[in-house]
């Protein structure tokens, strides 16, 4: 039996869409700074990119707080159980309308592959982008500035890490945009991320009706 479940809470959705917008905007301004095209004007691109970067960092700070205060961080712990079945599904099963091998529940929203990829994003790609981005902003010729301790003679390694991360993020977005169409219906996942509700297979052991906002965190922490 399928039932409407409140799966993405308001902050989560706000975080997701703000992050999505910022990543697109950072990519557009960032690749202009990289010299790939001319659109905003170079000085504007740099200044917009810096402002968006600060906005992103603030968003990340809130998101980290949210993840830990709600316990949602556990959703991203990688697991290898069922990973073979998941790969198998994307490579074979999906074409014959086989059922998803991983059940989506409020407590486990992500399949093993998603867990792995999002975990890598959170602990690898985003930190690399934030750290290299901050260095890029504040790196001012260490010989005269205050960053001599870092012993950097050039912005080059910083820029190269930042560029590599940007390509990784774009590749992620391409695949992500496609994979959200692989839900129950092509638009299921998109609707869920907009409204918060998704129709999922009911599981008797779990409370699936939308809890009200106040009690939700507690429910999950149990």
């Amino acid at each position: 039996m399928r039932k409407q479940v409140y799966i993405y809470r308001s902050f989560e959705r706000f975080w997701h869409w703000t992050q999505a917008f910022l990543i697109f905007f950072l990519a557009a301004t960032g690749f202009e700074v990289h010299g790939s095209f001319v659109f905003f004007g170079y000085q504007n691109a740099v200044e917009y990119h810096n402002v968006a970067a600060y906005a992103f960092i603030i968003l990340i700070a809130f998101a980290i707080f949210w993840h830990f205060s709600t316990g949602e961080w556990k959703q991203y712990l990688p697991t290898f159980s069922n990973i073979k079945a998941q790969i198998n599904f994307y490579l074979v099963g999906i074409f014959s309308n086989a059922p998803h091998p991983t059940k989506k529940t409020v407590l486990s929203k992500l399949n093993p592959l998603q867990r792995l990829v999002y975990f890598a994003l959170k602990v690898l790609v985003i930190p690399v982008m934030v750290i290299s981005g901050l260095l890029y902003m504040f790196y001012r010729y260490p010989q005269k500035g205050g960053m001599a301790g870092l012993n950097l003679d050039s912005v080059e390694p910083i820029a190269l890490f930042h560029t590599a991360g940007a390509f990784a993020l774009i590749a992620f977005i391409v695949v992500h945009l496609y994979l959200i169409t692989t839900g129950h219906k092509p638009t299921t996942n998109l609707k869920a991320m907009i409204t918060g509700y998704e129709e999922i297979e009911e599981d008797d052991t779990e409370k699936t009706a939308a809890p009200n906002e106040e009690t939700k965190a507690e429910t999950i922490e149990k």
Partner: protein
Amino acid sequence: MKKIVIILVVFFLAIVSAVLFLRTNETQQPLTVQLKEKYSKKHIPSVDHSKFTSLQKNFAHPQEVTEACITCHTERHKEVMKSNHWNWEREEYVKGRGIIHIGKKNAINNFCIGVEGNEQSCAKCHVGFGMTEALSGYTDSTNIDCLVCHDNSETYAKGSEMGGAPDPGVDLAKVAQNVGKPKRTNCGVCHFFGGGGNNVKHGDLEKAMFEPSKEVDVHMASEGVNMSCVDCHTSENHMMKGKMYSLSSMNRNRSSCEQCHTESPHEASILNEHTLKVACQTCHIPVYAKVNATKTEWDWSTAGQLKNGEPFEIDDKDGNHTYLSIKGSFTWGKSLKPEYIWFNGTADHYLLGDTVSDTSKVLKINTLNGSYSDPESKIIPVKVHRAKQPYDPVTKMLIQPKLFADKKGEGALWKDFDWVRASDIGMTEVGLPFSGKYTFINTEMTWPVNHMVSTKELTVNCIECHSRNESRLAGLTDFYMPARDYSSIIDSSGKWIVILSILGVFLHGGVRIFSASKRRKGN
């Protein structure tokens, strides 16, 4: 609860009013407006020299004028005689050479090569008279030419090939009674015509700077602030601030934009951050030689061709010489984009007698030091002047030929067109050997471009440097610059990862649609 709200409101209002109060206190005029005010004030002289009886007479010799000057300005001649304008040399420390005297006596330039043996002619731009022989032994203070710098009547002129003496037609009494603070004309008459013609040497100092428009020079524009040379090149005891690295070697006594504009003059911090590594001139002088062409190449090897035994000249449509029998062939350039180098304020020079063993490389007449990794270095715009200069392949030295003489038969190149004889006499005069053989080697000389500052609107754009193609800084490859530089490995592998992702997505999606439609048909 009500109390807390009231306290918070009061606290908030206090902060807001404090901020507003402090802000109104700080509302000063922007620096540029202050500077405009300061330099728009007209200089009012404290004395009227026409009222001095000692100047109201007929001067038979220019030296008498100098004597008259010294009777009141009793110490000034000592200052002048210590100055570069008088000595044509400085005591400088040059890395690898130690402390040396360097100046027009021992340095070579990329134009008329050098002054030794040619003093009669070159003295037209010396602040002295009676330069009929070698520069040394120049000790007579009455030979100081006060008027060439201080004439405010604009009627003073030095005679050609007269060892620095004024033109016989000059009314010395009139000039002496109209002296004052140096004007643009005083400086320009020499500094705009260096190298034997308008704008030959510098490219950014030329006769258009007597009355420039705002587009040509924002500081000196006659309809603008109308600044004079000495507003920036201030002097103390006749020692001028600023110098040219055609002869200078040390990072001292430089005249800079920062002395008025500070090191962070922009509103946008992103621009101010550039000032650590980029000189003001780099962005604010997008082109030089804006009005009249400057000499960019000088090939001495073609000199000496004669038509019916007579020297001749060929001019381009603007009237610039492209060939002179006495000097060789020239290339000129107008509205030129500067070249760019790292510069830390120190320079080395080719000095008379230096040997050059590797003639396959272009010989740098002056070497301006600097690099990205040197914290004192900034990127500056320069004019590079390229030449072919006479060279002795046996002694491996550049040749200082005797160029000028009054008449034929004295061995001067410009009269007799005999390289061997002119070289022999020239090198003997400077005390150096000459083997009797000569050839020509490629040389280049670097001239920092500091004048012809453009208006804000014409400043170099970000993407003129920050771009993949045709970056103005394409030649400076010792650092990473965003937009210009990238790692081809990261960029191409990044592109391929994205392309393959897209292809993968379309392939996967295509198969999904295909299999779904097949299933539907099956049903």
